[in-house]
């Protein structure tokens, strides 16, 4: 059997992290191809249902990328995203599901290197963690 390759679903905000990911590409940063990017206008637009649906349907990890605090294009979307992610993590932790599969990260449009490093590290971490048990629950 081939080695386990994690799959990451990423929700990236248009103004910072998505542009940062673009920069990672144009500056030829290398990062693992384990990530599938979904482009949103703001991290504040990420509902917990997106994250959970990804995890139940087969993602091993979810990355939510937004602007640094104070830099949100819509003023406060990232702060609200942070609360929402904290609530979801709190619920999942109490359900005995490791919150480490969900990563909220502030990456600006100029931080292409940081984006590449984040994806590399997250892929490594998930590889160690192994497949997401949630996707195998027959009655989920």
């Amino acid at each position, binding site marked *: 059997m081939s080695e386990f390759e994690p799959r990451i679903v990423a929700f990236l905000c248009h103004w910072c992290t998505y542009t940062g990911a673009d920069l990672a590409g144009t500056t030829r940063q290398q990062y693992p191809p384990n990530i599938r990017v979904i482009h949103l206008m703001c991290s504040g637009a990420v509902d917990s249902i997106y994250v959970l649906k990804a995890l139940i349907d087969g993602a091993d990890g979810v990355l939510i990328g937004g602007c640094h605090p104070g830099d949100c294009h819509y003023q406060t979307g990232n702060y609200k995203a942070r609360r929402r992610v904290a*609530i979801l993590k709190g619920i999942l932790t109490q359900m005995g599901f490791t919150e480490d599969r969900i990563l909220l990260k502030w990456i600006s449009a100029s931080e292409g290197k940081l984006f590449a490093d984040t994806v590399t590290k997250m892929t490594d971490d998930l590889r160690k963690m192994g497949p997401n048990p949630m996707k195998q629950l027959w009655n989920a």
Partner: protein
Amino acid sequence: MGKQTVLKVSEGKTEEAIRDFLKSLLKGGVIEALLVPKRLPSGDGFAQTLIHDPEKMDGACALSLTMPVQSARVASHLSVKNLNKRIAAVLKPCEIRAVVELTKFLQVKLDHLLLIGVDCPGTFEVADYSKMIQEGKEGGKLEGEILKGMERGEAVSPEGYGFRPACQMCEYPTPTADIHIKLFGYKTEEEVGLEIGEKLEKEMEEKGLVSYAGDGPSSRREVVGKVVAAREKKRDEAYQEFRGVVKDLQSFLDRFSTCIRCHNCMVACPICYCKECVFRTAIFEHEGDQFLRWADRKGGIRMPTDTLIFHLIRMAHMVTSCIGCGLCDSACPSRLPVATLFRSVGDKIQKMFGYVPGRDVNEVPPVATFKEDELKIESGAL
């Protein structure tokens, strides 16, 4: 703090005395109409009723022992659009706390809605209450016994029956309201307490409906404390038991394996107010191929699907505002401990934000606000 007074009860007819007081609000023109639980003609249950004519108050019972609907929902329907005359609603503490949450979400308008809160000994399941009445507790006998118990803070249910589990673990037996009808600690055959909030204290006195006097029995504080302590104990036991059973997602799914995804818990919930709920949209109408792909990956899938996501997302969306009325429990045809789930998980999440749902209309729900410097979750752990 509002102003205190007592309501004298003659011949031990507590229910009538409260009813006469409510009637005086209608007659005195304090309110145009009153929402109050009314005993059903069959005598074995209650229904919230909007009464306009003071002569139609027969059967109105402020201390109704069932909660067929969360009246915060009714208050929402009544007040949210075009309510231009002042009305009052007689509510239980949990209903008032739900009203407070819905007010924050702009689903209730308190401009013309007065809240009349009644001390709550707990409520029974509708079916249980009906059975008790049929077994010979008619004519307010059951209410009488429970009222007697409330003086000492020991409201006991008849043998073989129990208060709803959510009520047994509810640490808010007393409401915050514009008019507060106090029962705990009072010798209710002789008098019940009244506290009139700021909004009404002048008007009520000017109209000659009340005169303020006395602080009520000194034992009240102690009695309420005793009730709260007993319920907190029960609550913590319930949390512990539940957390013992639900350790991981698999054990959660095992415990909730009889969930038929009827959405009754969602419909009964006062906090779930969205007009268009995501679980009622086409997002969850999957294509046949999709089911087959899932079945292929997992070897087989349980039908109907999406049980886990339903409960987890409902929690993620409203657990910060869960006031613990337990109507989700009562609505569940599979008798699943939905309320215990929400309360036990919600407890920790609410504490994370120092938020107590239903405490104060002026507080902002955690999901609608933020602090710049909080929740260092960006780099990993909470």
